[in-house]
């Protein structure tokens, strides 16, 4: 079994009136099944309200399934005795950098998780050192989080999770509140963790440029996984993505537009380099054809 397995997951939010009576339910996740292998870099895409954040909360047992099951590292999230073990093996980074930093000094915040787990003092220090190195924040270890930039705060939050030595990190729109520089910092940090430390990453986002380099992409809409595959496979579906209120990187859109105008290019172009190469090949072919024509 993969590190994460979700089978027929359903989640209903229950609305209650002021007396606590059930007024109605709204379905946030509808029969989702997916599996993540160890060491993969997974991206879950979707617009606001597509159910992607709800899904994330199931992986950390902040929410429990209404129907269906979720297994993290082989442990069923519905069983209470697995709770702390799951939270330790699947760390979570949230959207708002300010609201997830508990410590008033960077290194103390990173140590918060291991402290809760009852890790001996000496080992906490080792873990904190390693975690700060992994996110490249050693120079700021004695700083107050309030004085850091958004990207730096998010890196501290990631270090806080790394220090718990999880096998899997789930990031719930970690870049939504950051500027482009911060966004880049965070994504680079996450990629490095995945490559160097072999941590499984599940990145939830609506920024398309963060998808590039992922092993697998899931697109969610109205609580369901509507599209999945490699980034290339997903981005060849420009029309479909637009239908799901997502946009594609400008280079992909440009390639798509050119193709519609009759320029033969492969599907799902994701980088400038691919486009330039594609156009060169196209030109050679066309020139060849023209010569034959003459």
């Amino acid at each position, binding site marked *: 079994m993969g590190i994460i397995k979700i089978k027929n997951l359903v989640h209903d939010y229950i609305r209650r009136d002021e007396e606590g009576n059930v007024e109605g339910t709204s379905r946030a996740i509808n029969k989702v099944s997916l599996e993540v292998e160890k060491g993969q870099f997974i991206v879950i895409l979707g617009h*606001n*309200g597509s159910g992607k954040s709800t899904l994330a909360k199931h992986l950390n047992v902040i929410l429990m399934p209404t129907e269906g099951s979720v297994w993290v590292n082989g442990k069923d999230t519905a069983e209470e005795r697995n709770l702390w073990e799951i939270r330790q093996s699947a760390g979570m980074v949230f959207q708002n950098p300010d609201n997830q930093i508990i410590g008033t000094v960077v290194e103390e915040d990173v140590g918060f998780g291991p402290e809760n787990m009852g890790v001996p003092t000496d080992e906490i220090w080792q873990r904190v050192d390693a975690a700060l190195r992994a996110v490249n924040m050693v120079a700021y270890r004695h700083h107050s989080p309030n004085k850091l*930039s958004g990207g730096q705060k998010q890196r501290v939050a990631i270090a806080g999770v790394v220090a718990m030595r999880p096998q899997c990190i789930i990031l719930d729109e970690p870049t939504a509140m950051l500027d482009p520089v911060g966004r880049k910092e965070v994504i680079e940090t996450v990629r490095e963790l995945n490559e160097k430390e072999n941590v499984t990453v599940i990145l939830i986002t*609506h920024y398309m440029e963060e998808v590039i380099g992922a092993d697998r992409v899931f697109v969610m809409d109205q609580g369901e996984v509507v599209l999945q595959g490699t980034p290339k496979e997903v981005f060849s579906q420009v029309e479909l993505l637009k239908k799901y209120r997502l946009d594609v990187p*400008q280079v992909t*859109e440009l390639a798509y537009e050119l193709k519609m105008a009759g320029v033969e290019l492969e599907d799902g172009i994701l980088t400038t380099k691919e486009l330039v190469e594609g*156009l060169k090949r196209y*030109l050679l072919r066309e020139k060849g054809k023209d010569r034959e024509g003459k």
Partner: protein
Amino acid sequence: MAIRVENVNYIYGEGTAYKIHALKNINLTIQDGEFIGLIGHTGSGKSTLTQHLNGLVRASSGKIYYNDQDIYEEKFSMKELRSKVGLVFQYPEHQLFEVDVFSDVCFGPKNLGLAKEEVEKRAEEALKSVGLDSSLYKASPFELSGGQKRRVAIAGVLAMQPEVLILDEPTAGLDPKGRDEILDEIGKLHQERKITILLVSHSMEDVARYVKRIIVMNQGNVQFDQTPKEVFRHYRELEKIGLAAPQVTYIMNELRQNGFLVDTDSTTVKEAKDSILRALQGRRES
């Protein structure tokens, strides 16, 4: 001419270890009816500058004129300035406080001391122009979706009927669809109601689609103040100050270096497509 900024400096924390020179000798003029993009990374001084334009922050030195009137003159009414130069803050939905959407939007015009009918008329107009469905007028602002909340907050400023509208990252945290909707509404406001707009943003892609002029700020200075095409020619310098030109600019420059005779000044996907098609045609015929 709407706003003129002359030699404005802003320093805070003077005499402490945290002294910051946030604005350094800023000079610029905003003409009536312009649509300007104000771009800079976090801490470049762009938000501080916007708060000077409606008098919320007072310059340490220098002058600001609104319609040729010195706003620091004693008899000048700051309250009136704030109604003429509307400022929508970042995450403006955090300022909502009333029991329903409609009364929240009434807050601004009510503060101007207008009659009840006028207040309501303005609120309704404002809500209409941000495209909020009238069935939501009586809903609590806290029950709305993120995008809807943001529109209500923008309507709250629009209801004061400002001549200049400044929006500080109006699309922050929204998904692509929500972002496009808000930007389109703003574009419409500019076209239909001739409101002067200053759009603060991180995203060159967003700005390139709408504005005719871009002001780039860096470390409290105005680094560039030109048309989008001219600004994007400096894409290497933009990178050095933590910004980037739209991806299209990079693509076109890359193509050019690979021998395609494309127009590197293309700023939108559509322009780029047309230019590439022309270049391909040219190469085939050569």
